[in-house]
C-alpha cells in the first residue's frame, strides 16, 4: 500500500522553484528518510506535503486521498527551532495540543485526552516532566515533547523535520527506539535527515533530494556511492540557472 504519493510536485519561492517535479510513492510501515544537503528543499517538501506552502504544480495524495480528508491520520513534527520555547506553557499543555481537532473547537480537553497525552509522554520518557515549564527543557527534551504531541494525535503517518538535530545521545536513542516500535505497529514514519553517517542505520527506505529528486527506494538499492555523489555533488547547473531566470523575469512554472 502507498502512504504518500507526490505527483510532479513543484514548489517555488518568488517563482524560483526550490523543488522541481518531485515524483515518488512511499510505502507504508517503513521508516523513511528524506536525505539531502543543506538547502536541498527537504523541509519545503514536508511543508508541501502538509499543505503549509502553496504548490506551483502537481499534487500530493495521502492514502490515495486529499490531505483534508485524512488529516487525523497524518501527524507533523516541525523543527524544534520553529517556535519560541519561552512561551508560557507546561510540557503537558504542549502535548495536549496534539488532541485538538477541527471538530473539537469550543470543546474542553477531556480526561481521556489527558490520559492519551500522558501515555504519549511516557513513550518518550518524559512523563515525569509533564508539569515542567517548556523553557526549562534541554534541546533533546524539547524534541521529545514535540514528538509526544504528535503521538498524542494517534495518527498512521508521522512526518518529522530533523528530529535528530542538536539532541543528546539519550534522546537520539529514545527516538530511534520509538521509531522502531512505531514501525512494528505498522505506522509509517517519514524523517527529514541530513547526516549521511547515520542515515544507513536509521532508515529502511530513503528519498535522495537536491532540489530535484535524485532517487527513491529501499536503502540497500539507493544508498550507494554513485547516487550519493549525485545528490551531494551540488545543484544541476542548467536547472539552477533556469530557476534564477524565472525569478528574474517573473515567469511561472506552468503556463
Amino acid at each position, binding site marked *: 500500500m502507498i502512504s504518500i504519493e507526490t505527483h510532479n510536485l513543484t514548489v517555488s519561492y518568488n517563482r524560483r522553484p526550490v523543488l522541481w517535479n518531485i515524483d515518488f510513492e512511499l510505502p507504508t510501515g517503513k521508516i523513511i528518510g528524506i536525505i539531502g544537503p543543506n538547502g536541498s528543499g527537504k523541509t519545503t517538501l514536508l511543508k508541501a506535503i502538509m499543505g503549509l506552502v502553496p504548490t506551483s504544480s502537481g499534487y500530493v495524495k495521502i492514502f490515495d486521498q486529499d490531505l483534508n480528508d485524512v*488529516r487525523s491520520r497524518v501527524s507533523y513534527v*516541525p523543527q524544534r527551532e520553529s*517556535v*519560541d520555547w519561552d512561551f*508560557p*506553557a507546561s510540557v503537558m*499543555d*504542549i502535548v495536549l*495540543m496534539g488532541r485538538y481537532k477541527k471538530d473539537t473547537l469550543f470543546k474542553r480537553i477531556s480526561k481521556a485526552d489527558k490520559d492519551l497525552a500522558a501515555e504519549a509522554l511516557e513513550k518518550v520518557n518524559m512523563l515525569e516532566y509533564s508539569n515542567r515549564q517548556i523553557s526549562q527543557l534541554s534541546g533533546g527534551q524539547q524534541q521529545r515533547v514535540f514528538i509526544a*504531541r504528535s503521538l498524542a494525535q494517534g495518527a498512521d503517518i508521522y512526518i518529522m523535520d530533523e528530529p535528530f538535530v542538536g539532541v543528546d545521545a539519550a534522546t537520539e536513542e529514545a527516538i530511534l527506539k520509538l521509531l522502531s516500535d512505531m514501525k512494528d505497529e505498522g505506522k509509517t514514519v517519514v524523517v527529514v535527515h541530513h547526516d549521511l553517517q547515520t542515515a544507513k542505520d536509521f532508515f529502511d527506505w530513503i528519498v535522495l533530494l537536491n532540489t530535484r529528486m535524485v532517487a527513491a527506494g529501499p536503502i540497500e538499492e539507493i544508498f550507494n556511492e554513485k547516487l550519493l555523489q549525485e545528490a551531494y555533488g551540488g545543484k544541476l547547473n542548467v536547472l539552477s540557472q533556469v530557476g534564477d531566470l524565472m525569478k528574474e523575469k517573473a515567469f511561472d512554472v506552468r503556463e
Partner: protein
Amino acid sequence: MNSTFQFLSFSDPNVLFVVLGTMILGASAAIVGCFSFLRKRALVGDAIAHSILPGVCLAFMLTGSKNPLYLIIGAFITGWLSLLLIDGITRTTKLKSDTAIGIILSVFFGVGILLLTSIQHSGNASQAGLDKFLFGKAASLTKDDVYVFGTIALILIAVVILFYKEFKLISFNPDYAKVIGLPVRFLEFMLATITVLAVAVGIQAVGVVLMAALLITPASGARFWTDKLSVMILIATAFGAISGFLGSYISYIAPAMPTGPWIVMCLSVLTIGSIWFAPKTGMLAKYKVQKDNQRKILIENVLKLFYHLGERGSGFNNERSVKDLLATRDLRTKELKRGLRLLKKENWLRKKGNNWLITQSGLNEAKRIIKLHRLWEMYLNQRLKLQPDHVHNDAEAIEHIITPELERQLEKELNYPTKDPHESIIPYAE
C-alpha cells in the same frame, strides 16, 4: 483624606462611571494584549490605534454625531483596514513587517489629523471634544460610554474564553494549528477583530498615542510572575483594571492631573515593579543569585587556603595568621576577613586569639572542594585532552558549582583517580 472618602463612596455618579469605564477599558486591552505580546506583534496595536483616528473622523463627518457606537464602528473599520494593509504589504512585497507597520501607522494618522483639522475648521459646533481622541477623555466618560464599553468587553471576554485553547495554539505554533486542520484564518480573524475592538474602545481612555501601552504593558509585566498562560492573562487583566482605578483616583484628588496618562503611569510602575521584584525572573532575584554565588566562591576559596597550607607539610591543626593566609593567595585583606567571618558563622573555622583554626567539619568541606577541583582537572586532562598546565583556571571556577550527582559521575567516569594531573593527591572523604 476627605476626597479619598468621597471618591471611594462614589457619591458622585460621574466618578463611578469614570472608574468603571477606565477599569473595563484597562482590563479588556490587557486581555487581548496578552496574545499580541505572545505573537510578537506588540507594535501592531500601536498601528491600529493610530489608524483608528481617520475612522473616528469619518464616522463623525458622515453622521454628524458623537454617539460612541458610531465612532467605534468608524474606528473599527479603519483599524481593520490598517491590519489588512500591513498583512498585504508584508505578504506581497519585500518590505518587512516593521516597515509596513511604520508606513501604515504614519499614513493613517496623517490622514486622521488632516480630517480632524478640517472638521475643527468647519464651524460645526458639535465637533468640540472630538480631538480628545488624541489624548483620551477618561475624565468625562458617561453612563452611555460605560454601557457600550461594558458590552464590548463582555463580547471580547466571551470570544477569548470560547477560543482559549485555539488562540493559545496559534500563538505558540500556527503551522501546527494549520496541519491539524484548525481554521487558522478564521481564528486569526477573530483575534484581530477583538484586538481592533479593544483598541477602539481603549482609545477613549488614554488616546491614540498612549494606546499601545494599555495593550502591551500589562502583558509584559504579568509574564514575569507566571509560566501559565491563564494566570498570565488574569494578572495582566488585574494590572489593567488596577491602573484604571488608580488613574481615575489620582486625577480625582488632583483635578489638574489628566486621567489617561496617569493610567499609563500606574501601568508602567506595575510593570517596572514586576521586572525588578518578580521572584526568580526579576532583576532583584537575579542580583541575589549573583551575590550568593560570590559569597559561596569567597568562603570556599578561603577555606581552601587552610587545606593548602596544611597540605604543604605544616599539618591541618595549626593556627594560621591573616598574614600567612594572604601570602598563600592573591586576596584583598578586606575580602579575606569577610570570608573568615562568614566561615566562623558556619562553624568551619574557629578564632584563637588573633589566629584562625580549621574545624573538623571545615576540613571535610575543604577536602570536598579540593577534590572537586582536582577531579575536574583530571577530567579536562583526560577527556578534553588539555595539558596539565592549562586546567587550573577552569577548575577554579567549576569546583564551586559541581553537584554531588555530577561528583559521583566524575568519580565513576574517571575510575576514582588518586592523583590529579599535577600529581597532587585527591582527598576522598573517609
